[in-house]
């Protein structure tokens, strides 16, 4: 008995040291998350991508994540903690981590950083984001077709260019179907507050909107639309569970392929600082199945998706007319250029509301 126990202990020791040795050989990859991984939205999708990464390269890498990391000075400490733990490639997955990431990146030139949705880069710090406005354009087409009242309801988080370009893309698309389409916009001034998002959805529906779109993170609006028998679009992730007869489609963040490509580059030693802003063609995001709509609307959506993917259709095709009735300067030739879209701070013609702060 005693002998076998000893053998067992020895075996465990060997096993322990072996796994430690292999762990030392593995590339350590770290992630900083804004929300809890159970938020069913933004952070959840980043973690799905991390899981895909582990599935693909699990024998060569080891991943660590820190969730619920607030944007600001705390983030700097969290990122540094990952560096000290030996992570060689670190993904910081929210806009507000931009300056903290840059600060840590300058301090540790041998560690590589990937910052999501920001615009500051360095030798060892890349940025990556997705052209979600392309998906919003498809949603605008569907919304205009599905709306009986001709009034769309839009819940915004904060009036930043990413959200504003989404609203504009939606409206431009909807106007191609119904030139008189109306869009009511309510800013929740938060990314995540299920109660407030639900209240905003109720207000929009009570004011006559019958298709609800959101740029906030929880499924609350979807669930209210479902309760009231209206239509809605999901956000970041698949939300059809909260509105089986309500969700028309959803923009799904699919970071997996990008994460795998970047980690492979790190493993090969070919990683270099880049600025990636990918659209439907590069699979940075995907559209959830087109559901709860007639076949002709579905076909229209699929055609638009194919055209955008192939580069034949651009949501911000010139002329883009601003609220003042004047066309916006066309810097990209046939369409607005990336800089104009990334910094978009105006509403297009047809939106009655005023952009906050303008």
């Amino acid at each position: 008995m005693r002998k076998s126990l000893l053998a067992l202990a020895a075996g465990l020791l060997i096993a322990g040291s072996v796994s430690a040795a292999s762990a030392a050989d593995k590339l350590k990859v770290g992630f900083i998350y804004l929300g809890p991984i159970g938020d069913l939205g933004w952070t959840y999708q980043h973690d799905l991508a991390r899981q895909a990464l582990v599935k693909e390269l699990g024998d060569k890498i080891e991943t660590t994540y820190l969730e619920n990391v607030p944007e600001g000075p705390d983030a700097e400490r969290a990122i540094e903690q990952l560096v000290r733990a030996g992570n060689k490639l670190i993904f910081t997955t929210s806009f507000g981590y931009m300056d903290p990431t840059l600060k840590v990146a300058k301090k540790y030139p041998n560690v590589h950083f990937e910052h999501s949705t920001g615009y500051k880069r360095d030798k060892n710090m890349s940025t990556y984001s997705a052209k979600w406005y392309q998906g919003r354009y498809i949603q605008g087409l569907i919304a205009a077709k599905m709306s009986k009242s001709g009034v769309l309801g839009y819940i915004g988080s904060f009036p930043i260019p990413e959200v504003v370009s989404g609203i504009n893309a939606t409206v431009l698309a909807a106007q191609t179907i119904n030139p008189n389409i109306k869009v009511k916009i309510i800013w929740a001034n938060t990314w995540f507050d299920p109660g407030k998002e639900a209240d905003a959805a109720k207000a929009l529906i009570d004011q006559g909107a019958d298709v609800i779109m959101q740029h906030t993170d929880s499924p609350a609006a979807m669930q209210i639309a479902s309760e009231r028998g209206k239509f809605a679009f999901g956000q970041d992730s698949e939300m059809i569970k909260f509105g089986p007869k309500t969700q028309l489609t959803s923009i799904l963040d699919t970071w997996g392929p990008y994460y795998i490509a970047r980690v492979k580059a790190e493993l090969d030693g070919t990683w270099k600082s880049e600025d990636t802003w990918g659209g439907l063609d590069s699979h940075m995001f995907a559209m959830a199945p087109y559901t709860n709509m007639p076949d002709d609307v579905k076909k229209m959506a699929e055609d638009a998706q194919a055209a955008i993917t192939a580069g034949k259709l651009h949501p911000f095709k010139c002329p883009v007319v601003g609220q003042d009735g004047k066309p916006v300067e066309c810097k990209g030739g046939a369409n607005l250029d990336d800089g104009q879209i990334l910094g978009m701070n105006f509403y297009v013609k047809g939106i009655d509301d005023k952009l906050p702060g303008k």
Partner: protein
Amino acid sequence: MELVEAIILAVLAASTPLLIAATGELVTERSGVLNLGVEGMMIVGAACGFAGAWLTGSIFIGALFGIVAGTLMSLIFALMALGLAVNQVATGLALTILGVGLSGLIGARFVGERITPAAHLYIPGLTDVPLIGRVLFGEDAFVYFSLALIVAVWWFLYRTRPGLILRACGDSHVSAHALGYPVLRIRTFAVMFGGACAGLAGAYLPLAYTPFFIPGMTAGRGWIALALVVFSSWRPGRLVIGAYLFGAVTILQLHAQGWGVGIPSQFMSALPYLATVIVLVLLSRARTGGSTAPAALGTVFVPDR
């Protein structure tokens, strides 16, 4: 007219969790204890309330789960802050941090699940009366309960002897102790009542407001409830005004944005806070002799033996 009714219904739904949580904290603070852990107790109440309802299919049992969870959380606070005489502010903040983490752990299993929300009252004839029918006779049980609760608390605090003793503990624990009242025991009950209310308020969110659980879904409502208690100068009547005013301005500013009134949304979002603070400050200035903070609020009491 339908829109007015819809707005009032939304206001009641938005105000109810604030009112319930604030009612509990008002009693706690009236006994002289400052429990800053309302947000933590609420979110654990939300997770457990949803778990209870999802597992049993009963909203009532879900609400009970929420109440029990909030009470258990408050007992942790009572043990530390009353039993071991630890600083109340620090303990309360720690309770919130603990609650946020714990609720994520409890709720992880239930993220993405749905339940049927709490049923609304329906009395044929009465509920169908235009404009006021659904407002008065078409709410869920939580709304009626919250109003009954605050009336009961008012009656208890100002019209009963135990209520007087509880207030005495809050104003001067030394005197109450000298008169032979078990200060710590009374405060423990007050803290437990606060926990039960916070748990129920948290449970209201996934059981009636937005029928799913998601970590962090209280989104700061516990802090708003705490602030309401202070600005109501610890008076039940003003608490009702404050809670409904806050809910009303929250909903109205959303509607105003939908109508496109052209006021910056950042200002609109700040409006509920501004309006509530201004009105409650004016109220407490208008009536002289109104009670202010319980004199012994937040102070540690160790009875001499």
